């Protein structure tokens, strides 16, 4: 085939190639940039695992029947960009209880085991995050009597105080997002000044398992 007469590699190719390879190796350095903890779909709780194995194929966003899986953005860090995260503004994660009998479809379709549930993992014992209720923005704390989040919680992780104001039981909350998805604090007239998100938001966990609260000191 005449392959023998072919030059192995020209000098120019070698130089360009070495440069390009160095760039790809250099990109690996993004690993050492600080990466914000972010909410992950069931099975993605080990952050390292998602970043290491996710090939950004976008399959989990597509398959999610409640459309709560969305791509992370550059704002969450370069390594997180285009990896899956959760957005509970429209719906919550029921572990595909309705769509697939409680077997999360995102884990089923993930081709690279970036989302991988450990043995015996269930909706109850997998902590996606923990809900944080910010009383300054919460309608109930203005004694309006709103209790949508309390009613929505499927894990009985919320209670009402003497004034019918809901609060979160941290040790029972697994971060499914049901409370966040029904919170009306932003929709029904922005009562609280400066409110840029709902009054109850699921916060991600850090690597050490502590919650990354926005308001509460942790």
């Amino acid at each position: 085939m005449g392959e023998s007469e072919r030059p192995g590699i020209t000098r120019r190719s070698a130089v360009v190639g070495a440069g390009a390879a160095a760039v790809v190796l250099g990109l690996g350095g993004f690993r050492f940039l600080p990466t914000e903890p972010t909410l992950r779909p069931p099975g993605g709780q080990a952050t390292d695992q998602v970043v290491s194995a996710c090939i950004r194929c976008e399959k989990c966003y597509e398959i999610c029947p409640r459309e709560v899986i969305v791509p992370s953005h550059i704002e969450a860090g370069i390594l997180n960009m285009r990896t899956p995260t959760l957005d509970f503004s429209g719906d919550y994660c029921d572990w595909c209880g309705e769509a697939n009998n409680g077997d999360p479809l995102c884990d089923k379709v993930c081709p690279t085991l970036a989302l991988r549930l450990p043995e015996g993992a269930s909706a109850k014992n997998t902590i996606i995050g923990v809900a944080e209720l910010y009383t300054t923005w919460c309608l109930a704390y203005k004694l309006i009597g709103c209790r949508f989040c309390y009613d929505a919680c499927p894990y009985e992780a919320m209670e009402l105080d003497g004034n019918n104001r809901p609060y979160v039981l941290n040790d029972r909350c697994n971060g499914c997002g049901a409370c966040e998805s029904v919170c009306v604090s932003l929709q029904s007239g922005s009562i609280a000044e400066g409110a840029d998100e709902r009054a109850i938001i699921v916060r991600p966990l850090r690597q050490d398992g502590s919650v990354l609260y926005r308001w509460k000191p942790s």
Partner: protein
Amino acid sequence: MRIASLRVLVALAVIALITIGFVTNIGIGTLSSFGWSDISILCPLGALTTMLGAKILVPRALIALVIVVILIVLVGRAFCSWVCPVPLLQKLRAVFRKDSKLTTPDEESTVGTGDTDTTATCRSAASLKTQSTAPPRVAGKAEKASLCHSNGDASNCSSCAQKRGTLDPRHFVLGGSLLSAALFGFPVFCLICPIGLSFAAILLVVRLFSEGDLTWSIVIVLLLLTVEVLIFRKWCSQICPLSAFMSLLAKVNRTFRPAINKATCLETAKGIDCGLCAKACPEDIDPRHPKRSYAPMSECTKCLECAKACPTKALRLPFLPGSRANGAGSDDSGGLGGSGGPNTSEQERAA
């Protein structure tokens, strides 16, 4: 239908299908993992780097890898010309070109199909030639000779013995990607892969309009794509590690290779220095003379431009070498024919 339009249509259909996947819940995935629900073909580089990065063996990735290897052995780099969205995006380069004076459909089609724009003039000579056979053949030949040689198109000129090396920058990028994934523990090339970024761009735009999801990611993704696709003109042939992976495996590809029927080929049958198939090739392969070819046959993307360019339809890409009834030799016989061919052409040139 013109073969270039057909390729564009196929690539557009793939993009359309994937976009439908984005707005439904079928789970078609993108080209990174294309399929239905939990059955999907993985990008071979993605599959390799994810396993190197996460340091685990992923059964599904291994199976996908085997399937992809089989596909590459069967069809070589056909993905590059028929499915990949990047050559499609590269066509946009024509929009940004200052001298858009020559915008006959023929010229447009040659932009972006490969990295050689020098073939444009030769191609128009080819189209002249294909219209009828007898008298324009001479004119076409003369035209071709003058135009292409003045273009300094070294790839098809046997006296300029420059050849594409067996290794080129792509292979360094491939090696760098694998090493980088292993060292830093994540699929590094996925961050900048223009195929992945193309579909990320579509998804982000869909989400921008459907969910009001406004993010800097859109700017970053589009910027990276622009740099890679519009500024790095030779991305596909010089940088893309997937192209490197495919061309390495395509060395054993024997199916759908250009085969020439010596009875009808102008060069062997009538001793005419035709060379239109070589001129048509966007990868700078010379199907008539594989031995003298600038690029090895493993670079063939099965784009069918050579078959289309052949004025006597002597060139085909049969499933198996020599399986077609037209007495076609394999590319090997093309090579042997080439040993007769150059003599005749050199005689002519001397004359």
